[in-house]
Each structure stands twice: as C-alpha cells, then as structure tokens.
C-alpha cells in the first residue's frame, strides 16, 4: 500500500500539470512574476468564523522575506517575485497550513508549479486549505465516573475496596487448617491493634 501511494505521488510529480496561467504572469516592466492565490478558511471551519480572524491571517513568502495579508475574499498576491523555487506559508490562528513549494520556471516564463511540502500533494490551482484545525486548549472531559476513578483519590478508594472485598475471597481459598493456625498465631501475639486486627477479623 505504501509503495502504491509512493508510485502515485511520483506519477503526479512527473506529470504535474502546469497551473493555469491566471496564477502567474509577468507584471509590469519588472523582471518578476506575480504569485496570486486563494486561501480558503470557510470550507474547513466548523465553529463559525469571525472577520477578525481572517484580517489577521498572513501569507509569508520565503520564511519572512515578504508578508502579505488576505483580502476580504481570501485572495492574496505577491508581486515582482523572481524565477526560482519559493516557499509560501500561511499563518492563521486556529488552522494548520502546510507550506507550499512554488516553482517559477525561468525558461518558460509564467510557468508555475505548486505543491504542498507536508504531503507532496500537487496543487493545480493555488487554493490553500488548512490541513486541520488547531485546538490550543485541552478540552475538559465531561464529568464521568472513570475520570474520578483514575484520579489518585479514586485509585486510593479503589484499592481499599479491592482489599476489603477481594482479599477475603482470596482468604477463603486458603486451606482452613492453615488459616486457623495463622489466626491462633496472631492471637498468641497478644492484644492486637486495630490495624492488624481488621483483615484478620473480617475474614
């Protein structure tokens, strides 16, 4: 199965299509290209989405060389980017985005390829979607008996219950002769204290 998927990836990499020309093109008299893309946040979200979050989302080129912001419709663009292999990262609180590898070919002007670096998925359009949502807080488990039992206190009580109810059962399996002898031995020791009396008596 692993090999199969690896083959598919290799296949995709080999035949990765040229992205639509709308994605990039020479802009103005400069020698650079424009990388334009779209960040989709609404599709992935389940908890609703406030405009504040989006206005604080950033798109970062080459580890901080350039930073741009998302427009209201989720589009972003970098202008005057030279040919070469670049890296785009999206920073949006609450979402995990894979960085994107962008190849701008210098031989075929305007030919741009994009692929996610995390899972090597090739993008035919520069539409970036979060891989997953990020939950920064531990969620409080709803009250359950298990959680109470798992706490140190619960374990203490549990152990006590175990000793009180299971130990006598174990004792019952013992040889009655032996038992009697043990009890006599105990009595011979004189006045026992409450603590060492309890298990003996309860049997």
């Amino acid at each position, binding site marked *: 199965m692993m090999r199969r998927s690896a083959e598919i990836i290799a296949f995709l990499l080999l035949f990765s299509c040229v992205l639509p020309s709308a994605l990039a093109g020479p*802009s*103005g*008299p*400069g020698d650079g290209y*424009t990388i334009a893309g779209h960040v989709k946040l609404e599709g992935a979200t389940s908890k609703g989405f406030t*405009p*504040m979050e*989006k*206005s*604080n989302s*950033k798109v*970062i080129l*080459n*580890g*901080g*060389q*350039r*930073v*741009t*912001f998302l*427009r*209201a419709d989720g589009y972003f*663009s970098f*202008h*005057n980017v*030279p040919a070469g*292999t*670049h*890296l785009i*990262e999206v*920073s*949006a*609180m*609450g979402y*995990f985005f*894979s*960085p994107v*590898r962008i190849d701008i070919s210098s031989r075929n002007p305007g030919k741009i390829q994009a692929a996610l*670096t*995390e899972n090597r998925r090739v993008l035919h359009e520069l539409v970036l979607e979060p891989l997953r949502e*990020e*939950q*920064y*807080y*531990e*969620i*409080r*488990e*709803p*009250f359950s008996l298990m959680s109470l039992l798992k*706490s140190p*206190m619960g374990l*203490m*009580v549990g152990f*006590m219950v175990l000793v*009180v109810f299971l130990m006598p059962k174990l004792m019952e399996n013992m040889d009655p002769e032996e038992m009697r002898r043990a009890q006599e031995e105990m009595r011979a020791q004189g006045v026992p204290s*409450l603590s060492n009396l*309890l298990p003996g*008596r*309860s049997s």
Partner: protein
Amino acid sequence: MAMAVRVCLGFLIVLLYSNFSTALYEDQVGLADWHQKYIGKVKQAVFPTQKSGRRRVVVSTEENVIASLDLRRGDIFWRHVLGKDDHVDQIDIALGKYFITLSSEGSILRAWNLPDGQMMWESAFYVSTPSKSLLYVPANINLGKENWFLVFSGGWLHAVSSIDGEIVWKKEFAIDSLEIKQVFQPPESDIIYAVGFVGSSQFSVCELSSKSGEVLKHNTASFPGGFCGEASLVSSDMLVALDATRSALIAISFQSGIINFHQTYISDLVQDFSGMAALLPVKFTGIFAMKTVSSIYLVRVKGVSELEVLEKFNHPASVSDALTLSEEQQAFGIVQHVETKIDFRVKLDKDLRNGVLKETIEMDPQRGHVQKVFISNYVRTDKSHGFRALIVMEDHSLSLVQQGVVVWSREDGLASIIDSTTSELPVEKEGVSVAEVEHNLFEWLKGHALKLKGTLLLASPDEIAAIQAMRLKNSERNKMTRDHNGFRKLIIVLTRAGKLLALHTGDGRIIWSLFFPSLHRSEACEHPSALNIYQWQVPHHHAMHENPSVLVVGRCGPSHDALGFFSVVDSYTGKERNSLKLAHSIIQVIPLPLTDSTEQRLHLIIDANLQAHLYPRTRDSVNIFLREMSNIYRHSIEVGKDMIRGYSLQSGCNLDVADEYCFNTKELWSIVFPSESEKIATTATRKINEVVHTQAKVIADQDVMYKYVSRNILFVATVAPKAAGEIGSVTPEEAWLVAYLIDAVTGRILHRVTHHGAQGPIHAVVSENWVVYHYFNLRAHRYEMSVIEIYDRSRADNKDVWKLVLGKHNLTSPVSSYSRPDVMVKSQSYFFTHSVKAMAVTATAKGITSKQLLIGTIGDQVLALDKRFLDPRRNVTLTQSEKEEGIIPLTDSLPIIPQAYVTHALQVEGLRGIVTIPARLESTTLVFSYGVDIFFTRIAPSRTYDSLTEDFSYALLLITIVALVAAIFATWILSEKKELREKWR
C-alpha cells in the same frame, strides 16, 4: 516475576509519557501567563474625521506596525505587523473609511478597511530607482465617483483607482532623472502639478492631465546655487527649498509656467545661525517650518522675496501638521519643554500671536524629550474647538493629552526590547507581612468546594465565572516579595530607546523605569545609547543587606570605537547607584564566573584595540582575577572576515599611563574558513548559567554514556556564499551548510558535518552536550532540524561498580581542554514544518528536569517541543529496553501538537527572542518572549512533579479521607458483627 515488573514499569512509563505537552485548559488562561500588546514608536498618525471613526486614531510605527487605537483609552482596535522590510512610508485616510498605506519604498500601496482592519486591496508598483516616495490623496474626494490616488515612487508617477487599486495610468520621470518632491491637484481642477528637481541644480514643474497622465506643460529652470533636495510647498504656486549648503532658503514661484527664484540667507533671517538647516515636513499654507541646531523656526512666506520669521522655539520642541478646522482656518500644535513640564500650545494660522489654547502638562521625566506631536480637534458643547494631542516621546511612548492632563500613555518602547535579565525580589521580612490576612477557614473551604465543582464540571456558568475571578484575583502572584517557588521575579528589560524597565512576572506591570539618554547626555556624550545589561551584584552570602543591581553598558555614539559608559542600577528601586564614563570603547563584554568580596561580578571589557579592561576597578577584584587569569580565554567571531580567533590574557597594557586594570590579549589560535566556499552564518554557545545535573546518561541495558560537557563548546554554522541570501535564490547544487563544534579554548574542531543542499536562515541552541539547529533543506524544500550529541569516550570504561568502589576510575582526573578529547558523536535530522524566528531551550534550577525546545514559529507562536523528539537514538524499530527508556519511534518529521504551544491562542507579534529563566522549583521554567508584543508564562517540561498544581482539589482529598475513614469504621463494625455471629454459632 521479572516479567511482571517489566510490564508494570512499561505501564508506568506509558502513563508518565502519555501526555507530551504541558497543555492548558481554556479557563487556566491568564493564571500563570500574561500578554501585552504594543505597536512601537509612532511615525505617523492620522485622525479619521468621519463620524464613525471619530474616537480612533490610525498610526504607523517604526516597527512596521499599522494600528487603529481607541482615543479614549489607548487600546488597540486592530493591528497589523507588516514584513520586516516593509517599512511604511506614507499613510492617509481616503473616503473616510479607507486607511491607505504606502510601504516598501513606495512599491506597495494597500487600502485597509478602517473599522476592522481588513485589507481591501493591494497594488504593487515597479520601482527602478530608490527614491523618497509620495502619496497624494485628493482632499475633495467624493464618494460617488471614482477617484484616483497619486503615488510617486522610484521614478514613476502612478494614478491608482480608489475602488480596487488598479493602476489607471503611469508616467515615468526617471528618464529625465526628475525627482518629484511634491504632487498636488488644486481643487476643482483637472491638472495635476508635479514639482521636483532634476539633478542638483534644476527645478522642474510638470502639469499633467489628471485623466490620462499626459504631460501638458513642462518647465525647467536652473538655479546656480544648487539644491539640497529638501522642499516645502507653501501654496499652490510657491515652494521653499534649501540650497546645497543648507544655509540659504530659496523661494520658488511657478505661477502660470514662469519660474522665479529668490534666495534668502538664513543668517539674514535669524540671528546666531550656524551650521545647517533642515526643513520639517509639515504642511501649512503660507508657512513653513525650519529646523536649525538649536531651534525650530516658523517662517511666513508673504511673497517670493519676503520671508518673515513668525516664531522661534528652542529645542527640544515639536510642531504638528496643520489641522484644517474650516475652509480658511488652519490650526497647528507646538509642544515645548519648560523645565520638568511640557507646554502644549495650539495656534491658528490667521492669528499667530495669540494661541487658542495653552496647557502645561506634567510629564514623567523618564520619558525624555518630545519627539513628535499630532493634533486633532473636537467640538465642545459650546461649539468652540477643543484640541487633543498625541505626543510621541523619546522613550517611544505615546500619550494623549487633553484639557491639560495626560489621558492615557502607552509604554511602546517595550515593542523594541534589545536585552533582558532578571532579578530576585526582596525577601519577605518578619513582622512586615505583605500578605493580606488569609480569609477564614469557612471561606477557604467554600472556595475549594467551588473549585471541586469546577473540576468535576458540575458548576454553573455563574460559578465558573466566580472561580475564574477568584483565581485571577489571587494576590499571591503579584506580591513584591520573593516566593518559595521562585515564580515571582523582576524581569529587567532594555529597550532600543535606551530605557530600562522592570516588569513584575506576576502580572507584567512596570515596577520602575529609568531612561538613560537623558541621564547620560552631555557635551562629551551627545548620542548615548545603551547596549546590554548584565547582572552586576546578586547578593546571597556576603552582602545580604545590599540590594541586587544590574550593569548597563552603553556607548556614546553609533560607531564601534565610540567611548563607552557604565551604569549600575539598583534592581529594587530603579535608581542609578553609580555611573562611569569609560576612557575606552566597548567591543565585547565578558561576564566572568567570579565575584569579589561584595558579590560584585567581575566583567572584562574588550576595547577596539583588543585590550581587556577589568571591572569593578578595585584591588580585591584584581587579586581575584590574577589568580584565575591563566584559565580565562576569549574568542572573537569576525563574521565579515569569516574568521574565529582565540585569545588568552596577559598582564600589562601598552598604554601610556600604567593601568593595573588593563590586560593585553594574545592570539592563541585562529580558524579561517575558506571564503570562496564558506561564510559564517550563525554561532551559538552554551548559556553561562546553565546547570548540568549529571554527566552520565544511563541508556538501555544498564549501560552508561558520559556526556561531553564543556563550557567552552562553540557551535558555528557556515553556508556557501551563494546561498547566504533568501530561500529561492539558489539551486540545491550550489548550496551547502557546514556545522562545526569547536572548543573555544584550543580552537580544536571536535566535529564537522556538511549538509548538502541546505541553506539558512539558521537558528541554533547549545545546551549540555548537544546542539540543535534549524535550517532549510533545498532538496526536500522543507525546513529541517538536526541534533548533534557529543559523548566523552575516554570515560566510557567507568561502568564497573568495582572500579568505582576501588577508585580505579578516571572520573576525578582533571578535564582539560588541552588533553586530546576522545569524543563520540551521534546525530540525526528531522523535518520541521514551519519557519523559525527564534529558538531557546528550557532551563531549570538543578538541571534534573528533562528539556524542551522553545521554538518561535513564523506564525509568532512559541511551540514547546520535547528534546526527546530530537534524540539521535530514535530508531524505526525499537528494542524492548529502548522502549522502556522512553525513546520515541523514528518519524521523518517532528510533530506539531497544537496544545504544546506555550502561547496557546495568543500571538507574540513580531517575535524576536525567547528567554528562559529557571524558577526555584526544579520542575518549572519561566519563559519570557518578546517582539512587538511581550508574553510571559511558566512551563513545566515534565509536568510539575515536585509540587501540587494550583488546581489541585483539596476538597476531593478531604472527601476521600473522610470516605476512607468511614469505610474503615463501617467494615470494622461489620466484621465485629460477623465475628459475634460466628462466636454464637
């Protein structure tokens, strides 16, 4: 039996390590952490005049932040931190609802929605020649029709549509080498005027059609005296410029295409003028502002040949832009220092003799001089104009002044912290209890019962709120005394403005502040700037009654050979204890691990002549130093020359005057990297105060490995010179990264490894016997983190207990850097998703607790990553014993667990540094991270194994004990009865 023990052990390990992160519940936010948002020193400010935005101000700052602030409280409505090279040049407001910024030397124009800060559009211009950029937003812009903004940058004039940022037309001026100084459009006119200079002596006026950008008229005239490039527009047909020597003013009128010059010497205009003048970029009609060495002058232009000085303000003073009150009335504000107070005046341009407003405001002397002032008006109930002023001070703080009082102040210097250190708080003295009386037992129980309800999730929303309030109100953490766990400390930070501030770790409030430039400014030291802070005196044995103090090192000018100054500041009071003007420069400060009899730490200062000066200058310290001198080495990293040199110290200096506190340095070794193939990118050393608990590391199969623990280990990473730039500039074949581990005493290279196809930026941390570094792998096009662990093999034989017992081991043999180390190195690389801005490692008091790496990611969050993920011994298939040891199976990339972000749902915008401070409680590290924002929290890398957590439920413990006792009695009674029955039988 052994099997059972193993199973039990395995279970325990699983239980212990099941939770890698020190995760937080949402209701615990703010209990141990605090976060403060800043914007930096304000460069420009604009007050929206439209109804909805009246209570706000939008600003751009030197930290590349644009923000909208609440005028009433100074809070941030919204804020954006632009890229590190994306400096904001011009800002303006258009149509009453868009905030327009021009940044990156005029190449990017963005429009933001004023209420919520959403970016509306962005447009980029091609910039061929760097020049000063201009943004012109027509004042008579109306909502219905399409309007154009004019942007001049890099030799091009662009007209940009206000609706979507499309470029309507553009006109190149670079061909004529015309540099435009002013662009304007007279109201109700279709002609755009662009005025500027060609070369240094020609003045040019262009008339362009606003529809198409077509040049209608172009007039040029030359002035023999030449221009310095500064110009100020005083009316729609007149300009005032400075000549090339900056000593004469040239009034230029260009009415209907005829250019006239008139030169006026400044010395004729004002008395005692000397030096050079500068024009202030303030916009008034008929008036311009000129700055000389000592004063600011306001000059009225009555005609081409007639200039009249209206007013003179002595420095330090600041003049605001003109504020249009009505069609023909303009006002401006002036702020001036009058002894300790500041004087704020507002004047109308029609009536300059009498001001409309004159207020004297008390200002904190620790804020320095006034730097900038912005004014805005409001209409009072009696229909008269009221004024408020936004004042930027020398320490980068921002204050709003209204009706003679400071309404609010923001300590925005904290957005540019350059160094930090910590100080303990005073010990709680007996009799003087700072704590409030502990509330009675009933209340205590009630509180705990409430908390119990909270933990069991039985509490109602009201009760949850009550619990939260109770926790946050906890006065314990804000006390001004030392606590048992060492959580309460003072963080002393130094800002770029030269201000020293002490922050309390409990809630981040400022305890004291001290502004250095105003303290050290003198004739000899005109531009004092503080460089670093060091611990000067940390009393614990000998000088218990003394307050701890910190040392601030600074220099008098921007160059490296400027003379230095020293200042010792009391950590409790923030008062300067003593200061010293040094007679030499400061290149490097080396805090030595030695203290004198009063617990003052010895410091060596290396000056530009490579001579070492010892401080404090006492006999005592020299004696201590001379004893240890043969063990003190230093190294210098010359990044430009790609060289590392090591030095030893020698007595005696080749100075003219004998100075027993001065020592000479002797070069011992040097490492020269081949400059054609390697370029120093990053270096890292161990923290000098790091504690290592044990040298031995017990690995699986009861085997022992000895860590090579040396204080002198130096990590150096070099990259191929071609790959020194940004990602995307080289191919994998041209890039490589070489990592070195060097002994800084002998210069011996302990280990060297080459990563082909890798490039920077590199971030590295060195701790104990390992180094972790982050870099970019061009082949995989992903970031990678590598770990190198270094072990001492010469001690590897000391495993036998008998050898240890009989003393046949070599553990006590002295470790010397000169003995040839027999080291073994293990390393491994992993992929890491994000770019990294800063990296640090946790530090604990005794070094027992396992370590976590703190990684500041590109999203301005701080991720805590267990060092165990970066263990070079991770393997795909683990043996049983390795599993027991807690080694994690090998994966190709490092996990990013969202709950492991120590900053949880917050961002430390513009993150630049992470500092870790050990608490007294072994399990806990204090983390302070700074950038534009500051954030503090405390983390426990292996959870708080040595103390009960704050949300430990005492009530549950009590209930359990009661239940147990009850059960004991119940079973006892039951057993008694049973026995009785048996006896009767």
